Structures are given as structure tokens and as C-alpha cells.
């Protein structure tokens, strides 16, 4: 065969294979998603990472379900009723549901799931403490099950929609073992597991027998890319269709918006940022000083300039979609002269030093804290910024009460219930509350936990928000949007606030 004919054959082969590829493309539709972290295990009880949820929401179902509109809906349970003053919940289960391998779903699966979570296996993992209210789970019949609670937990129904409460297949786990399940997950969700390569990615396929209907995509590929610029480059080169938060920094939004093939989708998120105060020692012990610091910083200007408008001002340490947010509360205005008056009244000398502890790895928040420091300079305070490695700040500095006068806290409970923020931030003795102890606030926080009446609870949560704001326990900064980078070939995509992204309705062109 001479050179020319080899070349011709090669061309022909190429033409045939590429037309084959085109043909298969029209049948299969694959969405490739970039996620910043590999959780290492796909078992629901092993992790707290939101990036676990971003994938696993497609593989598993809970008894309840909460979609992008954040309304609680029936999931694997079709209905439920709260009995015995909230200490018992009876669920009626959906019939005819199977796991991806054909194993039947019934009340035994639910009992197995929660016995496992609260038992020896769950003890090794971090999810158990979140469901501590559950005492026992009692099978009434194949499709009826009772949850007996140690104490009423008003947020439990929401918690059943995610993370540790995902229903797992008993027979599959018992036959294959716990280790196998970590890397070969199985649930009842709209996509089934296909393959997993640690640190590289996980692939899912559509599960056409899902009780909610077959998903429109046939394949769902996740790639783990931690470096934001790499994820964006993959998006720009068309090899990734969707970059999920928390990846894209504010600074890269314009790069994506300028690209004709890409777009940015944002939505409100639960994540709120604050500089909390050391209320036990130093100048921030004085409430007047704390208020002065808040008056002294123009938070709206920070939102407009540094955050490019991708954030909203907050008056208490929660976002507008949090249950317990009081829309009548307004953030303290920017008023440097009032700030200086308050400082003078508190006897603070100009040039007094003040330390702000932050997580050092977040470029955007670095800028924010520098802006805060320069605003404080204007009212006569000499603020220094101390960056820590994130995990050191979170695990060793804050809980031990070793921070400066102010420290960064970013928080965003997926349950979107203010209890999951306020109780941990303000109740005496909690890990995230190293400095403050206020019996009145403790009583308020405890009282709302035993109330099942939604409206009454909301009133108490709102009063807690007002109370903490009156005492100026933190400088509420802003509520940052969840930012998604999306290729224009992706249709029907709805950004979700809580990272629990279910991609059943999405299609690709």
C-alpha cells in the first residue's frame, strides 16, 4: 500500500468513526459537571461536604424531598403526621419503589438506614450527631413506620431530605460490605452509579424506573477540579458544561460572561459572612464599641464594589431564605460620625489596636477584610488582619477562644433554619460560641426547640435575631450568592441555593 492510499483509508476510517460518534451522540446526552472536591466515600453517613450532596442528591432519595424552591415535598414517604406533641412521627411510604439493583424499598429499608446511622457504623462518622433527636424507628407494617424521638426536633423533617438520612439498600450493603458500598453507592434516586475513580471523577447513568419519572439526560459525569482557574478553563474549552459552587470566585465572573458560549447563573444561597466579636475580653467587650464598629463599616459599598453585587446585606447572621429571618430588621446604616461618638463615649483612644482573624485562602474575603480595616482606620482604630489556614482557624482557634477582637465566620446550614445557626453561635458552651454566655438568650434558644407550632417558632427565632442584633454580637456583612458557570448548550438548568443539585430536568444540545 503506498502512502497516498494509506492516507485515504485513514480519512475514510475517520469519516466512518466520526459519523458513528455523531449517531451515538444523538441518542446519548451527557452532562459534565466540575465539582471542587472528592468526598472520598459516597456513603451518606460518612461526610458533611456539600460536594457530596451535589452528586449524591441524584443517586439517593430521602423520606422527604426539597427541591430548588426549598418547599418540603413528599419523597419516599407520601405523607406523615406528627403525634404525641411532636415526639412521634408516622410516615406512610411510597409503594412500588425499588433500588437501582431491583431490591424492594419498604419500611425495613428505612429501619435499616436509621439503625445504621444511629448505631456502630454511624458512630464512626460525622452525620450521626445531626439526627441525635431520633430515639428508635419502629416498623408498623411494610409501608408504615414510626419515628420515636427523644425530644421534638422541628427541623427533623427537613433533615430527612438530605445527607445522613438518605435511604440505603439493606440487602446490598449486607451482602457486599460497608467498604464496597463506600465506592459503589446505591439508592433509589433518578441516576444510578456507574463508575468512580478517586480524585478524578464519578459517573452516573439515568435510572429510567425512578418513581418520579426517568431523567432527561442519559449520563451524568462529575469531575473533581479544585483549582478555580482550571475549572473555568475546562468550561471555556467546552469539556465541562457546568461548574458548581463553591468554585468560581467573584473575580472570574466577567471572564465567563464575556465568553459567547457561557453564562453565569446565580441564586441566593444560605451562606452568610460576618465578623464576630470577642465579647469576653478586649475593647469589644463593650457593646458600644461593637456597635461603633458596625456603624463604621460601609457594608453596602463592599457589596457593590468588591463583591460585584453578587451579595445582599444582612441584618442578622442569616440569609433572606432562612426560617426565622425578620424582614422588618434593617442593617445598621453606615455612619462614621456616630461610630466615633460611640467610641468616645466608651473611652476608646484613637489609634487603639484591634485584630481581625480571617481564613487566609479566600482571595475575595481577603479584600473584604482589608476594606473593613481601612474603614476602621477612618474612625480612628488601627486594625491588623491575621490570616490563618482555614482548618486551623475553624478547629483550633475559634473553638478554643484564641481569636483577636474580631474573627471571620461563614456559615450556611443547608436546612435553612435559623436554629441551625443561632443555637450553635449563641448558646452557652457551644463549639462556635467560645466567648459569650447570656442566660436570657439561652432560654430563648431552648424554648423554640420544643415547639412544633411553626408560626410560634418563627416568632421566637425572629426575636432571637433581634436580640443578637441589639447586643451587636457580630458585624453582619453579607449573604453571598451561589455562583454557577454554565455552558449555553445546557438547557432547563435551575441553580439551587443549597448545593443539592438534582439534574433530572436538564437537557444538553
Amino acid at each position: 500500500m503506498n502512502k497516498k492510499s494509506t492516507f485515504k483509508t485513514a480519512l475514510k476510517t475517520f469519516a466512518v468513526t466520526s459519523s458513528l460518534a455523531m449517531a451515538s451522540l444523538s441518542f446519548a446526552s451527557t452532562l459534565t459537571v466540575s465539582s471542587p472536591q472528592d468526598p472520598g466515600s459516597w456513603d451518606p453517613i460518612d461526610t458533611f461536604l456539600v460536594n457530596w450532596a451535589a452528586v449524591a442528591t441524584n443517586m439517593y432519595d430521602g423520606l422527604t424531598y426539597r427541591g430548588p424552591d426549598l418547599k418540603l415535598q413528599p419523597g419516599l414517604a407520601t405523607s406523615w403526621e406528627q403525634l404525641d406533641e411532636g415526639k412521634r412521627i408516622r410516615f406512610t411510604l411510597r409503594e412500588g419503589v425499588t433500588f437501582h439493583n431491583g431490591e424492594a424499598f419498604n419500611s425495613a429499608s428505612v429501619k435499616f438506614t436509621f439503625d445504621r446511622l444511629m448505631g456502630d457504623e454511624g458512630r464512626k462518622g460525622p452525620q450521626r450527631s445531626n439526627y441525635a433527636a431520633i430515639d428508635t424507628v419502629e416498623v408498623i407494617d411494610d409501608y408504615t413506620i414510626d419515628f420515636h424521638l427523644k425530644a421534638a426536633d422541628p427541623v427533623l423533617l427537613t433533615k430527612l431530605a438530605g445527607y445522613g438520612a438518605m435511604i440505603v439498600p439493606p440487602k446490598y450493603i449486607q451482602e457486599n460490605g460497608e467498604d464496597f458500598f463506600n465506592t459503589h453507592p446505591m439508592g433509589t434516586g433518578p441516576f444510578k452509579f456507574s463508575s468512580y475513580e478517586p480524585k478524578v471523577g464519578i459517573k452516573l447513568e439515568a435510572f429510567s424506573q425512578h418513581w418520579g419519572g426517568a431523567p432527561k439526560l442519559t449520563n451524568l459525569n462529575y469531575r473533581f477540579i479544585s483549582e478555580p482557574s482550571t475549572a473555568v478553563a475546562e468550561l471555556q474549552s467546552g469539556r465541562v458544561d457546568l461548574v458548581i459552587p463553591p468554585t468560581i470566585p467573584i473575580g472570574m465572573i466577567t471572564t465567563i460572561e464575556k465568553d459567547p458560549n457561557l453564562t453565569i447563573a446565580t441564586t441566593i444561597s444560605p451562606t452568610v459572612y460576618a465578623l464576630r466579636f470577642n465579647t469576653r475580653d478586649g475593647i469589644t467587650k463593650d457593646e458600644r464599641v461593637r456597635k461603633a464598629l458596625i456603624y463604621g463599616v460601609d457594608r453596602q459599598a463592599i457589596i457593590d464594589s468588591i463583591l460585584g453585587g453578587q451579595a445582599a446585606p444582612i441584618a442578622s447572621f442569616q440569609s433572606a431564605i432562612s426560617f426565622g429571618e425578620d424582614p422588618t430588621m434593617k442593617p445598621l446604616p453606615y455612619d462614621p460620625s456616630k461610630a466615633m461618638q460611640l467610641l468616645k463615649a466608651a473611652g476608646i483612644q484613637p489609634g487603639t489596636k484591634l485584630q481581625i482573624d480571617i481564613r487566609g485562602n479566600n482571595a475575595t474575603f481577603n479584600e473584604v477584610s482589608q476594606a473593613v480595616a481601612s474603614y476602621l482606620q477612618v474612625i480612628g482604630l488601627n486594625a491588623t488582619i491575621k490570616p490563618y489556614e482555614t482548618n486551623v482557624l475553624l478547629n483550633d482557634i475559634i473553638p478554643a477562644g484564641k481569636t483577636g477582637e474580631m474573627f471571620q465566620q461563614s456559615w450556611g446550614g443547608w436546612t435553612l433554619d435559623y436554629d441551625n445557626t443561632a443555637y450553635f453561635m449563641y448558646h452557652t458552651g457551644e463549639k462556635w460560641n467560645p466567648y459569650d454566655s447570656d442566660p436570657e438568650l439561652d432560654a430563648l434558644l431552648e424554648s423554640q426547640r420544643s415547639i412544633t407550632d411553626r408560626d410560634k417558632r418563627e416568632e421566637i427565632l425572629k426575636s432571637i435575631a433581634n436580640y443578637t442584633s441589639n447586643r451587636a454580637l457580630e458585624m453582619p456583612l453579607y449573604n453571598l450568592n451561589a455562583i454557577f458557570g454554565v455552558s449555553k448548550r445546557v438547557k432547563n438548568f435551575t441553580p439551587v441555593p443549597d448545593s443539592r443539585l438534582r439534574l433530572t430536568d436538564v437537557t444538553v444540545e
Partner: protein
Amino acid sequence: MANFLMKRFLQAIFVLLAVTLIVAFAIRLTGDPALMLTQGAGSVTEADLMMIREALGINKPFFIQYYEFLKGLFVFDFGRSFMGGTPVADLISKSLPATLMLAASVMFVSIVISIPLGIKAAVSKGKWADQTIRILSLIGLSFPNFWLALMLVLVFSIWLQWLPPSGMDGFASFLMPAFTMAIILTATNVRLVRSSMLETLQAQYIMVARAKGLSENTVLYKHALRNCAIPLITYFGLQFGGLLGGIVVIERVFNWPGLGTLAFDAVSGRDYPVLQAVITILSMLIVGVNLLVDIAYGLIDPRIRTE
């Protein structure tokens, strides 16, 4: 020779023991993995933490943990990752080949470019070819590699869309990471080859070889290159070790599923077993390469064998 090898081998074992001990101790100063695992949880009691510590095996005294780690080393059992419980050996067996393949291609690219260029520069010392090569290598040396990586991605992945911007996926995916690392090594190597070549070319036996009428290529590649090989091999060997360390940054930029990525995640996740294993493997490699360099000395220069 056997004596010489034995001595080197015992030294290598001692170095490895010292490294593992230091690593095992130092990593435990980074903080509590149980706190790390429950970071997202609101309320965590000390009892919850104790249960997690027990499950991870970090409630035992340090020397017991270290002993168990050493014992596992012999059967390639590094325990389980704290994040997700995957056996560490599984993670290593996937990422070690990825890193080695990348490092080897970097070395290959760099050596293939730098030896001819270095010789060319040495032979034409002071002429324009020498000047150009020296200026180019100076420019190569001054590039920060992460910046170079980002620029390459911008040009070849985003503008031209020829190469994949990240991941390990076939031959094309090797080009950018290998080239990025190689360009910086090459800059140093060219200068090294040039200077050791210049020194060798002064020697009398080169003059003799030329006087015998041997072709210039035989003189350069057979006589001169072999004689200046010792410093070059030492340097390339050490460079390979340094490369394994430096590859962390490049792996991160190119999302390469290698040891660097594994180590990076392990440090930030306080994943003791994974980090211990990665560092032990890396030091084994570096010590091993040094051992090979020593042995190669012996082969190239008979004088060393007898010392």
C-alpha cells in the same frame, strides 16, 4: 563494589526510618482529624469526637501508631484514608504511576533538549549561537511555572482548543504539564551541560582525540560527554527528586491525579495515613534515585568503586 553498595544501602534505610518518624510526628501537630471531619456539624459533643477518634485509631499512643504504620509498610498496607475510608494503598497505586509518568516525561523532554543545546553552546562559545541559547535559557529560568502553565492553558486550550486544559487523558494531556516543568529544568540544564562541557573540552585527551583525526561528533559525544557525565548524572538525579516535590504545584494547576494532588488534599484534610504514605513513597523514590546515582558513578568511573 559489594561493600560499597552495602554501605549505600544501609544509609538509605536509615534515612527512610528517620524521614518516616519525623513525618509521622510532624503531621500529628497539624491538628485533630476528628474536629476536621465534624467541621460542618453544628453541635458536636466530646463523646462524639471520642467515638470518631477511636474509629480512626488516633486515640492510641504515638509510638503504637508509628509501630503499626511501620509494620504495614512491609506489606504495602498504609491503612485507610480518614476521608471516606478508602485503603491508602489503592489511592497510591493509582496516583504513583500518574506522577512517575509525568516526572519521567519531564526529565525526558528536558534532557533531550538540553544536552545538544548545551554542547552547541559550549562548542560555539562566545558566538551568536551561544549567546542566543544562553539568553533563551535565562528567559526560561525566570518563568514562574504556575504562570507559564496558565498561559499555556490560555493559548492551547482556550484560544486554539488543541489540548485539554486538565486531567490525565491520553498523550495530548501530557504535553502542557510536561513542557511547563521541562522548560524550567531545561534552562538550568543547558547552562550546566555548557559549563561542564567547556571544562572538559580544555582537557588534553580531547586535543589528542582531535589530533587522531576523529570526527567532531565522536569527540564530543563519545569522549567529552562521557567524561562530564558524572556531574550531569548527579544533577539530573537530584533534579528528579526535586521534581517530585515541585510537581505538586503543576499537578494542582493541571488537575493531574498524582501524588501531589493526593498530598495536597491530605494536608488540608488532616488525612494522616494518606500524607504519611505519600511522603514515605516520595522519600523512598528520592533515596532510591540517589542510590542509583551512586551506583551509576561506580559504573562510569572505576576509581569510585575502589574507594
